[in-house]
C-alpha cells in the first residue's frame, strides 16, 4: 500500500512522517517517534493505557490511524512535565498519593486526568471515577489514583490537598 504523508505536532514539536494508512497512532508514536510512554494493554479499546490528548481531546491512540491525526496536535505523557523538568501537578500527585504501582497504566491515566481537569477543574470523587472510567488499572484499585487527581486539582487551583497517601 502506498504510504501517506502526515504532518502534526507532538508534544509541541513539529513532526513529519510517512506512514501506512493502517498504521495505528499508538504504533506511530511508539515505534516511529520513540515515545514509548503510552502503552498497549488490550485489543478491544477498553484499557486506555494508550490514551493521549489529540486536539484537546482524550483519545485512545490504539483506535485511531496515524493518518487521522494529520494536522493535529498531540500531547503524550512525555510532554506533561515543564521544559525545565518540573513535574506537572498530576505527576507529582501520583507520586505523593501512591497512585501507581507497576506504572503501566500511568501514562494514559495521567494524560486522561489532565484533560479531565481541564473539563472540570474541581471534580467530585464520583466525577473523577466516571472521568477515568476509560482507563483500567490492575494494581492500585483506583483509590489512590482518585487522591492523586484530587491532589493535582487542588494544586492547580492554588490550594493544598489535605489527605495523606494511605
Amino acid at each position, binding site marked *: 500500500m502506498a504510504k501517506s504523508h502526515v504532518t502534526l505536532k507532538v508534544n509541541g514539536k513539529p513532526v513529519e512522517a510517512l506512514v501506512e494508512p493502517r498504521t495505528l497512532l499508538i504504533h506511530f508514536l*511508539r515505534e516511529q517517534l520513540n515515545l514509548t510512554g503510552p502503552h498497549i494493554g*488490550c485489543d478491544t479499546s477498553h484499557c486506555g493505557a494508550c490514551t493521549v490528548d489529540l486536539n484537546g481531546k482524550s483519545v485512545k491512540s490504539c483506535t485511531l490511524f496515524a493518518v487521522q491525526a494529520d494536522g493535529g496536535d498531540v500531547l503524550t505523557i512525555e510532554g506533561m512535565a515543564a521544559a525545565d523538568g518540573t513535574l506537572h501537578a498530576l505527576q507529582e500527585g501520583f507520586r505523593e498519593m501512591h497512585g*501507581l504501582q507497576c506504572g503501566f497504566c500511568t501514562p494514559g491515566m495521567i494524560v486522561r486526568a489532565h484533560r479531565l481537569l481541564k473539563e472540570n477543574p474541581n471534580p467530585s470523587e464520583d466525577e473523577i471515577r466516571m472521568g477515568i472510567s476509560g482507563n483500567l488499572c*490492575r494494581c492500585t484499585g483506583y483509590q489512590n489514583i482518585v487522591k492523586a487527581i484530587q491532589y493535582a486539582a487542588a494544586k492547580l487551583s492554588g490550594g493544598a490537598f489535605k489527605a495523606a497517601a494511605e
Partner: protein
Amino acid sequence: MNDQTPSKEERAERLQGMGCKRKRVEDIRFVQGKGNYVDDMKLPGMLYGDFTRSPYGHARIKKIDATKAKAVSGVLAVLTAADLKPLSLHYMPTLAGDVQAVLAEEKVLFQNQEVAFIIAEDRYVAADAADLVEVEYEELPILVDPFKAMAPGAPVLREDIKDKTEGAHGKRKHYNHIFSWEIGDREATDAAFKKAEVSIKELISYQRVHPCPLETCQCVASFDKIKGELTVWGTFQAPHVIRTVASLISKIPEHKIHIIAPDIGGGFGNKVGAYPGYICAIVASIVTGRPVKWVEDRIENLSTTSFARDYHMTTEIAATKDGKVTGLRVHVLADHGAFDSCADPSKWPAGFFNIVTGSYDFPVAHCAVDGVYTNKAPGGVAYRCSFRVTEAAYCIERAMDILAQKLNMDPAELRMKNLVRKEQFPYQSALGWEYDSGDYHTALQKAMDKVSYKKLREEQKQRQESFKRGETRELMGIGVAFFTEIVGAGPSRNCDILGIAMFDSAEIRIHPTGAVIARMGTKSQGQGHETTYAQIIATELGLPADDIMIEEGNTDTAPYGLGTYGSRSTPTAGAATAMAARKIKAKAQMIAADLLEVSEYDLEWDVDRFQVKGNPERFKTMKELAWAAYNRVPKGLEPGLEAVNYYDPPNMTYPFGAYICVVDVDVDTGVTKVRRFYALDDCGTRINPMIIEGQVHGGLTEAFGIAMGQEIRYDEMGNVTGPTFMDYFMPTAVETPKWETDWTTTPSPHHPIGAKGVGESPNVGGVPCFANAVNDAFKFLGSTHIAMPHDHWRTWTVADKLGLHG
C-alpha cells in the same frame, strides 16, 4: 552535643527506613513515561514473531502449508513443530513435571494453541503472514467437563503420554489423569465424621480466571552467533529460573545466557513460567542471527498464557452441635487444561492447598486432589495466591459459613469459637503446616468492633422483615472472612523449583562515600522493591534510603534467586537483605572499634552510628565507617564493605486477616452493590504502610473482579468464550468499591525483621468475603451455597429459583 544536634528521632526520620511511608523511587520514571518495559526495546535489526493458532479445541493436524505466508514480503521464516523437533524443542518441560507443546505437532489440544511461528521484519507483516498459514485439521471430540475427564471412553487427550502409567507425581489412574495427591489422616478423619453430631458437605467450585496484568507476556531474544551467547529480555518474575531452564533445554551453557527482566507491567503470577512465545523467539533468534521480539496480544494472553484456579472442591466439615469443628475432609478435582504447567514448588502438585484448615483448630483433617487434563489452556498459575491458597481459603471460608447456617449460628460467632488461639502458636495444623504466629481473636474482634457488627446484623434483620412485607426489593448481606495464608516459599526441606531450593538472596555493597548498591534475587512487577528493600537496609545500616540503589532482574549481576510471586519477596529476599546487612554491620563494628580504640563490646548501635557505651559523644557513623573500610581496616580484615546472603527460610510465614463487607442485592436485576468493605491485615512487621495499603487496595479490586464477574469459560465445542476486555470483567474506577484498611501486627518469630509478606492477602481474603456476603443475603430464604462469579444474571437466577419474582 548542643541544641543543634539532631535528635535520635530526627536522625531516624532522615533515614526513611522501615515503618515510614517513603515515597517510591520507581515513580519518578513511571510518571514521566520513562519506564523501560520489554515492548519499549528496539535493537538494531530486530525482527518480530507472531503465532498462527488453532481455531479448534481438539483436532488432529493433517497438514501445515506455510507457502503463502512465506511469500509475504518481509517474512524471513515460518517455524513449525517440524523445525523444532530436531532440536528437541517442539515440547518443553513444565515446572510441574509434565511437558508442553511449543508448537503443535500431531494434534492441537486447546483453542488458540500455537501451531506456527512467523518471523518477520515488522509486526504488521508478521500479523498478515500469520493469517496466511494454511492448516488442515481433523476435528476430534471435545472434553471440557473435568468431571467427565476420567469417564471410561472419554476422549484421549494426551496421546504423547497415553501409555505412561506413572506421571511426575505418581500413578496415573486414567489416560486423562495427571496426579493424585493426598495429605492428612484419612482414618482419623473418617472416624470423626462417623461420630459427628453435625456435618455439612458441599461442592465448592472456584471458577477458571486469569491473572491478566495490564502488560501482556513478551520478550526480546538475541543470540550472538560470534560469542555463542543468548540474551533474553522478558517479562520474567523469576529471571534466574528462566536462565537455568533455558540452559537445560537449549544446551547453551548457563554462563552464556543473560536473562534480563526490565520494568514489568504487573505479573500476578502470569509471568513466572515459560511460554511457547519465549522458546520460539529464542529459536528464531538463533536461526536468523538477529534479535526477535514476541509480544502477545490480550486475546492470546487470556486464552493461552496459562490460567488460574479451576478447582472443584467437595468439602465436608464435622462438628459438635454447639459449633466446635471436629474434622475436615476435602476432595479436589483440579482442571489443568491440556498440559500441567502449574507453577508450584515441585513436591506440591496442588500447591499449598493443605492450608485449607484455614484459621481454625481442626483436630483431624484429610485432603485429596486429583488433577485431570481437558481441552483448555494449560496451567494453572498462582494468581496472587501463593500456591492454591486462594482456592483453599475460599473453600474453608465458604464451608464455615455453610456450617454456621446449618447450626443456626452467626458466622462470626462460629469463627470465634474455632479460631486457633494465641497460646497455641506455633501451631501444628492437622494437614502438616506449622503456623508461625497469630492473634486471631484480637483481629476478628477489632474488625467486628470497627464495623459495628452487631448493629449491622440488627439492621439486616429489619431489612429482611421489610423485604418479606414487600417494602423493599433489596437484600442486605454481610460477608465475613478470616483467612490465614501461607507464603514465603520456602524452606529447602520442602520447597524447590525443578530441584533448585527456594531460598533467596541479597548482595549489598557500600561505596566509599557511604552510598549503597544492593541486588536481590527477586523481581518486582509493581510491588515497590526499589523503595522497600532500601528501607530495610536504611534501618539496618543507618544510611539514608535515598543513598541506596536497589537492582533486580539482571541474572548476571543479581545473586541467584527464585523470583517474586507467592508473596515471597519480603519473607525470603527481605530476610536475606537484613542478614547481609548484619554481616556488614558486624564488620563495621570491628572497624569502629579499631578507629575508636575500644573493644567491639564497648560499642552500642544508635540509629546510624556505633557509639561508646556510656560515652555517646564518641561515635563513628556508618558513613564514616564506609570511608574507613576503603583505607583503614583493622589488621586481618580485607578492605571493602559488602556482603551477600542466601537465605533458606526456616519456615513459611503466615499472614492473616479479618475482612467484613456489606452488600445490597437488587433481586429484580441481580445487581449487587458493595456498601462497605473493611479489611484488617496482619503481615507482621510493616515496612512501608503506604505500599501495604496500595497492595491491599489492588488485591481487593482483583478479588472483587473474580467474585463478581470474572470467568474464562469454554463451551461444549471447546470455544473459549470472552477472552477480551469486552467480556472478561475488569472493574473500572466506577464499579470498584472504596476500601477501608486496618491492621494488627503479629511479627513472625523466625523472620529477621518479623515481616510476613502481604501482597496476596487481599486476593486470598477478599474473594470469600464477597462471596460470603452475597450468599448471606439469600440465607434467610433458604439458600445455602451460590457459586461464583456473582454476576448479575446468576444472582438474579438464584432469586428467581427462590420464587422472589412473583
